[in-house]
């Protein structure tokens, strides 16, 4: 098995039954939230994980583009641009 195949078998934590959860796309400015997991378990979620959107990490919305999409998030010291579609896969717990 190649390393890529091995890494492709990683399971990303799926979010389940907690109160006060919402998706990262619904986050308001100045309101950091803790990442809990992803809505689905596939390569896109694995890539978001590798980009630093790891469960337990705190993410914050920095700004939105002129037409509200895409958005810039601060996570783990870097600013990452995501479209609403990808951001809505990330489940967060508001603090």
């Amino acid at each position: 098995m190649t390393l890529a195949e091995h890494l492709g078998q990683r399971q990303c934590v799926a979010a389940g039954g907690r109160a006060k959860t919402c998706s990262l796309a619904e986050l308001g400015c100045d309101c950091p939230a803790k990442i809990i997991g992803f809505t689905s378990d596939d390569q896109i979620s694995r890539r978001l994980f590798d980009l630093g959107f790891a469960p337990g990490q705190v993410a914050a919305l920095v700004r939105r583009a002129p037409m509200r999409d895409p958005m810039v998030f601060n996570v783990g010291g870097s600013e990452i641009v995501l479209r609403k579609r990808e951001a809505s896969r990330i489940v967060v717990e508001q603090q």
Partner: protein
Amino acid sequence: MSCHAEPPIRVGTAPPRFALVGSPNAGKTTLFNSLTGLRAKTGNYPGVTVARYEGRHILDDDSHVTIEDLPGTYSLDPMSPDEQVVATVLEAGTSGDEPLDGLIVLLDATNLRRSLGLLAQVQQLPHPITVVLTFTDELARRGGSVDVLALSRATGVRFIPVIAGDKRGVASLSESMGDVASWPKPMLPPPTDPSGVADWATSVLDSASFRAPGSDKRTSRIDGVLLHPVWGTVIFFVTMMAFFQVIFSVAAPMQDGIETLFAWLGGVARANIPVAWLSSLVADALLAGVGGVLVFLPQIALLFLLISLLEGSGYLSRAAFLMDRVMGWAGLEGRAFVALLSSMACAIPGIMATRTLPSAKDRIATMMGAPLMTCSARLPVYVLLIGMLVPGDLRFGPLGAQGAIMFGLYLLGAISAMLSAWFFKKIIGRSGVGLPFYMEMPSYRLPRGRTIAVSVWDACKAFLKKVTSIIMLTTIILWGLLNFPLRSDADLQRAGIDSRDEVAVKAFVIDNSIAAGIGRAVSPVFEPLGFDWRINVGVLSSLAAREVFVSTLGQVAAAEDPDDPVAALTNMTHTDGAHVGEKVFTPSTVAALLVFFVYALQCMSTLGVMRRETGTWKWPVIAFVYMGGLAWLMAWLAKLVVGGMA
């Protein structure tokens, strides 16, 4: 122009081989440049290194090692073609015929947690690993800190801090490359499953007393303005407008200087070369033709200077962010915008930059649009034609009219490129899964003078090379076609031309040349656009390279009026057909020509690269045919509209 990216330099497999692995923007290319001295392009935009680069590094004992700069990747779980390259090279390095002796993993100290995830993945491979920790200066500036020795202890691999390729860091890396056997290795590789790797990273960071950096105050202050929903967009368009104003206004005096020089040289050649045909070859073909293209060197240099300033400062990523939504309407993503933006230099790097797109369908759709972006080869043609259309001192408010028209043409190209990408995306069909778009916003950095100088120099060199090879060759062939068959005195007498009147003789020869025959043969196609046979020859010859159009017209004009070729061009009249005696370059014809050049795919190298990147001739053929058809149609419309206004 800087198009033709050099193929990777292959060195024998004998010396030890090391690969640089790291995420985009971790400083790989800068380190690669300091190690090898080989100039690969460095930039602040994630994903600049798409081609494969290899270079040689000389160790202290004068033996050398091979360094391979891999494309930036956030993960070894590949999604896009260039990430696949990384996975393949690393996998082949363990078993294949290109073994790797060691991996140098670059980690950005400002986002260490994420970087450790990549390190954990790389550590699954059996290779010896050394980590280069970059941007520790930025970490400190933003109030963070880390104990580098403790990092080495906790991960079991050696960490060497290197700031922007500084001498001391590079020297200690170089020293360690001489002794791979001594590289430490942990007993067990770290875990890769999400929760395991998160715990591992936490424990490593804790034991290295890592203090995360605060947000970059400078960058967020600048972004507050440059990415403001209203001001950001306004500034974006103002920046783009200014871009073209600068290209015109700053380059003009230098351009005039070069023009005067070539006119003077032409005069010297005519006066001093006794053999008539040789004097014509040197003065008309080489000096007026090739020199006519060389005149645009200042513009090319400025274009690349401005692009590399935008890229090196980090603004290009912001532009992609601002434009992502617009690209979304065309069914594409912000990274496709960057591929299209690189096509403003030349379609070839633009097409190669599509390798960062994960979806094959997006790649093809972007490739079909990319050649419509105004590349630097169109610049000479636009400058020449716009100069004939409006005088240099005409202004629209604060804007020079010439710069404004140029901006309009770039905008037309960009909009057409997006529409065409949208259209092809529709035809090819939607991609099955919604593929993700993500991009890291780099901090604003002062562009490095050396990087900019290299980029401008490479562009100028590529332009000069093109001028002295394909453009010169085509120009000489055209000179032949324009000056043959030779006319005897008897021929001239029969036609009623005084053989002592050199200008009349020349005009007669050209008007009855082989080229004129070809130009007239295709005139049914181009007649509706108002082109005469000379323009037809120019358009046909520009298939070799767009700039040849300028050198062709330059030749014809110099032959008709050696003292003032510009006036000769402006006053050129139709020699046959329905419009005999009327001026050729009427506003409507010039507009039609400009629009024709916006759309036509007159570039053999672009077709070649499309073939290479898609693996079939199907797409280059489709691109050539649809752009040719579109060019004719839009030029015809432009003629109609401008003709109606006049």
